[in-house]
Structures are given as C-alpha cells and as structure tokens.
C-alpha cells in the first residue's frame, strides 16, 4: 500500500482507497478513478510535479498533493498491464 505519489514511472497499481474527506477532487472520481481501478503512473513532469497517470483508457494530469491522498496497491495482480521490465 503506497500513495500514488510514490509510484515509479511505468509502475502499475490498483487503487485501494481514496480519501474524499481529505479533499480528493470529486472530479477525479467522476473520471472513474474509484477503488479497484488499475492505473499506471506514466511520468512525472520535468519539474517533478504534476504527474501523468493513465486509467480507464485516458491520460490525466494531477498534482502530487492530490496523488498523496490516493492509496494504491502495487502488489495487486494487474494481468493485462504488467509494468514493462527495464
């Protein structure tokens, strides 16, 4: 269980919980970022913030501050979308 903000570029995770009370944007949930969703951290912006993540067939940019509130399970089995080995 790690915050999304600590994923490495290219790493997958399954969203375990979000913390709406701690101010996760309602917009992210509207986009389908809900518990159980598999997501991938694509990259960090050149200056380290924001992050680009991919889930449900879309690429979305969000800031570190939000990503800290999203807890992902990196050990979860993500059958189709395994991270590529370097």
């Amino acid at each position: 269980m790690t915050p999304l903000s600590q994923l490495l570029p290219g790493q997958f995770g399954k969203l375990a919980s979000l913390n709406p009370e701690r101010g996760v944007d309602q917009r992210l949930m509207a986009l389908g970022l809900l518990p159980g969703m598999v997501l991938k951290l694509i990259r960090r912006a050149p200056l380290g913030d924001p992050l680009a993540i991919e889930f449900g067939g879309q690429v979305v940019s969000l800031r570190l501050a939000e990503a800290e509130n999203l807890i992902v399970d990196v050990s979860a089995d993500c059958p189709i979308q395994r991270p590529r080995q370097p």
Partner: protein
Amino acid sequence: MSTPDAGLLVALVGNPNTGKSTLFNALTGLRQRVGNYPGVTVARKSGTCDLGDGQKVELVDLPGLYSLAAASPDEQVVIDALSGNIAGDRRPDAVVLVVDSTNLLRNLFLASQVAELGRPVVIVLNQADVAKEQGLRIDTELLSRRLGGVPVVMSSAWKGEGILDVRRAIASAVANQTPMKRVAWPTNIAAALTDVATAAAADTGKPVTEAEGQRLLFDTNPSTADRLGWTLAQRDKTLRSARDRVRNSGYNPMAAEPLVHYAHLRIILEGVVTEGAGKAGRSAAVDRLLLHRFLGPVLFLGIMLGFFGSVFWLAKFPMAWIQSGVDWTKTIVAPPLDAYPMLQSLLADGIIGGVGAFLVFLPQILILFLFIGILEDSGYMARAAFIMDRLFSWCGLNGKSFVPLLSGFACAIPSLLSTRTIEDPKARLATAFVVPFMSCSARFPIYALMCAAFIGPLYGPGWESVVMVGMHCVGLFFAVPTAFVLTRLVLKVKPQPFVLELPRYQMPKPRDVLWRMWQNAAEFVSKAGTVIFAITIIVWALSYFPRDASVAERIKASNPTAAEEVVKAKTQAAYVEQSYMGRFGKAVQPVFDPLGFDWKITVGVLASFPAREVIVSTLGVTYSVGEGAKADSQHLRKAMQDAKWSEGPRAGSPIFSLAAVLALMVFFALCSQCGPTIATLAQETGGWKWAAGSFVYMTALAWLAGTAVYQVVIRLT
C-alpha cells in the same frame, strides 16, 4: 436566422473535448470555435438546427463538463441550462449527450447523471472515425436497448458523417419522449435522497426534484443549496444524518454517486464494445519525446523560439509586398493633389501612412495565429500546461490558469473569458488580473518595428528573435511575482487541485486552423478600418494644424542661402513642432523623459491608451507628416534611425538609442493600453475595482520598468 418552430429547445451536453462544438457547427451551419483541449467553449451559444424533415429547433452549444457536481462558472452554465434556472430560459425539450466513442464508460457517467433529470435524451457516439481506427466496434442497438430505448447514433462530426442520423434521432427523441434508463440506488441511499429532498422542500417551500436532491446530498460545493435558498443552518443537520445513513450502508458519501453510476454502467456496457485489430494511438510515443524529462523543456523552448523566429522569416516577403503596395498607392494618390497640400497630407501621411504602417503587420499576425492554431489543435497545449504547471503552482496559480495565460499571448479578451473554467473565484480573479500581462498579438507590431529598425540592423537577425522572445517573457516575468503576492498575501487563495485530461494528439485540421486564422485576420483588418483609422486621422490633424504661413517665412528668412530642399525640410519640422500635437507632446514629454522618450514617442504612447497597436501608425504619422508621396517604404525606419535630440542635455545624440528602444518595448510589454481588456476585466470580475486596479498597477509598473531599463542601459552603452 429563422425562428424555430414550436420553440423547441435542444441542448448539447457532454464531456470536454468530445466534439460538441464541432457537432453544433455541423448541425447549424454556424462557426463556433473548436480546439483540441478541454475547455474551449466557456459560454452558451445557440443556433437553429433543421431536423431533416423541415422541423426546426433551437440548439444550444454548452461548455464541457465531467460531472453535474459542477464547481466552475462554465460548468454552472450547463447546470443552469439543463434545469432552466436562468431567467427567461426554458428547460431543454431534449438533451443530446455527445460522447467520445473511444471512452464510453467515462463519458456515460455524465449521461447517467443527466438521465436522472428525466429529460428525453439522444446519445451521440462521436469521433467514430477514431474508434474505428483503433479497431473498436460498438453495438449501438444493444446499447440503445440497455439504456431503455433512447436513440444511440454514431457520428464523425468533423467529417460530417452521421449528421443526418443525429438530426433524425433528435426528432425521434422529441416525438417519443423516451427517457434514459436510470440507475437503481441502493435502498439506504434512496432513503437518504428522499430525506434530503423532503427536508429541503419543507424548509424552502419550493418543489425539489430528485435530481436536485442528489446534488444536495452528494456535492461538496453548496451551489444547489444556495440556489434553492436552503441555508446552512437549515440543511446542516439533515445532510449530516443523511450522509451518515449512506456511510452506514457501506458507501463513502462523497464517492457513493460515482460508485453507483459506474457499477451500473459497467453492466450496461457489458458486450457493447468489442476490440478488434486496430492501430493503438501514437500519443504515448509522442509524449515520450515531448514530455521527456530533459528533452521536453528543451523542445518546448525550441518550439517557442522557432515559432517567433519563423514569424519574422516567413512574413518578410509578404510584408515587403504590402509595403510596396502602400507606397504605390501613395504615388498614385499624392501627385494629382499637389495643388491641395492639406488634402494631400491627410491622404498620404495620415491615412495611407498611418493605416499602412499598421497593415504591414498583417502577415505576421496571420502566421502568429496559424501557429497558435496548430499548437491548439494538435493537442500540445495541454502538454505545455503539464510541463509548466510547477511554475504556476509555485506562485499560487491554478494549473487551469495555464490555458488562459497561454491564450493571452494571442489576445487578452478571449483568455479573460476562458478563466471561467477555474472553480475557485479567488484563483479566477488572480488569473484574470495577470492575463493582461501576457504579450498579446497587439504588442507584436511595436516589437517587430523596433527589432526590424534597430535590433536587426545593429546586431544581426539572430538577435531579432532573441529580443522578440525576451519581450514575450517580460510580461510573464512580472506576472509571476504579481500572482504570488495576489494569491498568497492579498486574496489568500487555497491551493487548488489540478486535474487535466491530456487529449490525444491529432493532425491539426487545416479547416479549423485556417478558419481561426482568417477570423483573427478579419478582426485585425477591421480594426485598421475603424479604431486605427479614427485615431490616425485625429493624430494627423493634431500634428498638421495650426499651419501658419508666418512659420515658413521665418524659416526662409533665417536661412537665405540654404538650398530649397533644406528649407523645406526645416519648415516641415517647424510646422510639426508648433502643431497642437507638438505643443501637447512637449508639455507632457517630461513625464516620459526618464524613459528616454522624445515628444513624438510621448504622443504615440498617449494615443495608444485605447489600443496599443496605434503606436505604429502614430509613429508613422508623426515621422512622415509633410513628406507626402516622397515617403518610401524605408522612410519610417530611416526617419526613426536618423532622429536626433535637438535640444536639452542629450542634444545631437540619437533618440532611438538602444536604451530608448528597449525601454519603449518594455513599456509596451507592461502598460495597460487596451480599452476592451479593461471593460472585459470589469465584466468578469464583477466591478470596476479590479479593472481600475489593473490599469493603475500595470501603467505604473510599465513606467518604472521602462525607466529602470533606460537608466541602466544608457549607462552601459
């Protein structure tokens, strides 16, 4: 435009960037702006749409949104349009839900929320061409059946494919009034919703719909409660216990709505989409390059530098053609009027010289907008926001501020309107306040004139693009600390979440890009015919009159041996100096003396307050009055290069020294010289307070920065 029969009203609703405006244009034949980033449309716009059988309806294009839990003003427009809240506005008779075919699940979330309103809907699966390319096959019949029989049609709005089907589907939705299948709320949530709606209705004495009940229960922002007049004191207890009830049933109350809808939609979409062989998008590969940790910023800078460099380079020849056209017109118009020197001067120096000096920049403006159009339509704009966000978050600006700020480089007016995509009113205000600092295209002509006349000849063409890029950064350089102080100290803006969809890349569509370029060119030219024309004539008149014969006699008498040409030149100079403009300019000049401006520049600066582009035509007039047809294409530059101080401590040295040239450009980069911007700022910030503040602040800053530049550079050179 004919009025719609029976007054039927149909609204286009959907996620951002799905092609609503493109579809609107296809259905109505109008030309709404489109672009490949979320948030192009920020206000409602209506047109008449023929349903194919002669029946006409009024169609409204609306801003895009992801959820009815609307937070920003542009999203609120959609909520109001759907519920008919705006005075004098009706509820739509049907809602066309425009969906991106490549991402049905996410797009249908909004559709499912809209279904709760109980209006007849049409589902348009747009961008069908892209879905096909990706090998996606969509069973529209199955989807239609699962959604309760509402019409589901596929279209490629941009290619004009499937538009007739959309028309027919709207007709059938209006005729059959089929509502879309709604989600089944779990019992406890349903009960909580009933509690909330009942309590709100009882407290406010107004009817509260089920859909409104959902907004009251699920939304963190209180806009629905505020609109109903349900006060915090009244609603607090009800909402608390209703949310507890949701929580006890195992749902997080803030996430319950999307969870229930998404679960419902996953079942509906089961077997609807089949993935066949197709090309995966190339966006990921392009992003690997353009968003690369080192290459990304380098390419970003490279694109900007190349962009400004090529604006010069590409525009060179067309500019020369226009210039020779202007000169040729003068040679045609002027000689027959030799007997009427005043009329000759009005036409040749005033109108042709002044407006011509402005029109010469048309090719550069065209190329500028061509590039902006390409950047927007390709999908790079959102990436630029991604790369730059950190710089903006540092000074407290919303990431969403980026698009308004970037489009501020074209023109401040539309970008002030596009600040409506920002939820937090304070963040929005701060963004609007710094938008006018962005170097808009109206500043371009003065930079270009100064670079071409002084920087290029003195330091070589390479420096032209460097100075050009530098000038475009000056505004940004001051905007960032301004925003910092404003957001952190004055307004105390809370840090904002920044969630931005990165759209897929696409080949810029020549039609859309050229249309945008054409519209801006038309605006530029019509400005030449109106504002610029009027101010030019006024400036000409003020620098031509009074014209007392005694001046000529005095010059002649004091230079008895001089050649006729010399006498003539001296006479012209004397006339301009003692004109109303000359006297006025000289009186005010001391204010601008620390910036190294002479009285002619001072006149130009003052005349440019309504519209900053006026400066080039004013310089064109003040430096050519009395020259008539002799002023050839090089004349304005030459006259400026040769201009020397005639008196005072700087006597004999060139007026346009490097220091004065830079000070002039910096002054124009920062000064608030645009009437429409001030008016729009007042309109968008809801009063004259901020608009007046912006005017005073920017103008004072421009004066100080111009002075600093002049005083430092003059000592170094």
